[in-house]
């Protein structure tokens, strides 16, 4: 009891001020600077996410009091035909986007890397669709692939009868048509991303490969590919996450139709919550989507732990 009193007695006004300043600098100031982003995150993202985790176990129309129903929403998901279609479509979407745009990105970047003349022009041209709004890109392709005025009937006239398809109206092709449009705006971004990753590769490695008489394929396989591997793995992981979130192009082009043929989980959340007012069920679907993202993020962290430069 006596000790603090001694300390108190010894503490000159300067020392007190100094200690207060240190406390301010160490414990308070950093949090003042972090406060806006943290408060926003809690209010907009973390809080409502916890809310979703709660509503997922309830039946709620958005008005009145939610009714606790336990696991009923999740059980319903297992037997819901539309949920199964949507989930399958997300899986198909993932497989398409893990292959087509990544292959195009690797090809485009490999072809573009050795080029000096017009390099900037190619880069900008590939990137341009990526900066254009999804609303506009969807409109462009809805016109080009229009069943009576678009490119289909035009090609059919010239003998390509199989191209005369209702791209967004035929339930067998609709998902692939939308994926084609989304990929059209996306692959060029990957070209530029992989090119940027290539610039970080030590040029001496290429010199060495050339001195060894490596072909261009071997150069790419043994110097470029290992060099951009972290970026490649990163795009693969992000592709899986984004493929389960896809919303814009599907909503804009078909709203999930015809007859749910292009339904995905994100459009189903939207429909359940804001058209059918089954908020509890919508929240449960949202939670199920997060499981997939969480699994990928865990994989990502594990890769990093094992020393991968992802």
């Amino acid at each position, binding site marked *: 009891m006596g000790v603090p009193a001694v300390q108190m007695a010894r503490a000159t006004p300067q020392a007190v001020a100094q200690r207060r300043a240190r406390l301010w600098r*160490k414990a308070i100031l*950093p949090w003042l600077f972090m406060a*806006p982003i943290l408060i926003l995150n809690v209010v907009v993202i973390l809080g409502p*996410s916890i809310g979703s985790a709660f509503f997922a176990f309830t039946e709620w129309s958005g008005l009145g009091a939610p009714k606790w129903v336990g696991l009923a929403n999740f059980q319903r998901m297992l037997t819901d035909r539309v949920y199964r279609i949507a989930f399958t479509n997300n899986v198909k979407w993932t497989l398409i986007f893990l292959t087509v745009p990544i292959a195009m990105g690797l090809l485009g970047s490999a072809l573009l890397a050795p080029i000096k003349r017009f390099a900037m022009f190619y880069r900008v041209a590939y990137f341009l669709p990526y*900066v254009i709004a999804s*609303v506009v890109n969807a409109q462009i392709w809805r016109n080009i692939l229009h069943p009576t005025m678009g490119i289909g009937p035009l090609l059919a006239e010239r003998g390509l009868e199989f191209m005369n398809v209702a791209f967004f109206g035929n339930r067998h092709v609709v998902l692939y048509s939308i994926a084609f449009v989304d990929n059209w705006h996306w692959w060029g*971004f990957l070209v530029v991303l992989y090119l940027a990753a290539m610039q970080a590769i030590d040029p001496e490695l290429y010199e060495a490969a050339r001195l060894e008489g490596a072909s261009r394929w071997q150069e790419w396989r043994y110097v470029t590919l290992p060099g951009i591997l972290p970026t490649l793995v990163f795009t693969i992981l992000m592709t899986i996450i984004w493929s389960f979130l896809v919303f814009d192009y599907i909503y804009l082009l078909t709203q999930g139709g015809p007859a749910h043929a292009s339904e995905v989980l994100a459009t189903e959340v939207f429909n359940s919550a804001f058209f059918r007012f089954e908020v509890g069920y919508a929240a449960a679907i949202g939670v199920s989507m997060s499981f997939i993202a969480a699994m990928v993020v865990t994989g990502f962290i594990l890769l990093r732990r094992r020393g991968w430069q992802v």
Partner: protein
Amino acid sequence: MTVFVRRRSQRTVSLVPNYIILTALVLFSLLPLSTLVFNSLKKDTEVGRNPLGPPVSGIRWQNYPDAWRDGHFSITMRNSAILTFGTIAGVLVIAGLAAYALARLHVPGADLLTLYFIVGTSMPAQLFMVPLFFMWTKLGLTDNLLGVIIIYWATMSPFATFLLRSYMVAIPQDFEDAARVDGASEWQVLRHVIAPITWPGFLTVALVTGLGAWNEFLFAVTFLHRDEVKPISTSLYAFVSRYGREWGLTSAAAMMMVLPVIVLFLLLQRQFIEGLTQGGLRA
């Protein structure tokens, strides 16, 4: 010397297939965009005969003022401008403060916070959107531009923070220490020393968040229903659905949404590309 020349010419010859494939890919990227430009300048009578090619029976500029008037662009442009600039201003301040704290102020548990934000940004909007909508309705923030701006602040700030922090940690500490010795507060150091040096980072963040807000669709279509508050993205969607067959008119409307973006992108492509690819380049 001769060896050098021959090798060089060999390389040039062997690049011809590259140019051919790359040019084909350019056509794949740009031809669809050109149909939009062409259609925006056609009479509707021509669109029926020639829906994809360039206009041949005269150019009709009138589509643009018509679309401006019928699409209520004076309102939607204003709404989109408020959303865009409100988002940019807020994100610059919020992310600037957070980035400075992470780069210089020894935030306890900084690694954990960074991890939290990385995980948070990969979570689907569908996880928090539905409860957020009902909360925002209670607070009067639906059908309200500020309500959507706040959402954009929250969703876009983490990326902006990481980008700005990478700029700030690259600056040698002695730069600011002089100012600190002179008695400047941390806020003053950020405002008068760090921010002026890292302005290219702030510009990149402004461009990327501005583009994101201008083009955004999901939150806009969920939270803004009344015509007076709709931004261009969702009002264009409604406009195109309503005037379905009038491709001249709807294409002109779409052109007015993308022209500012394309002009800015062509002027500042280096910053755009750097900012947009940053997330994918983790060294």
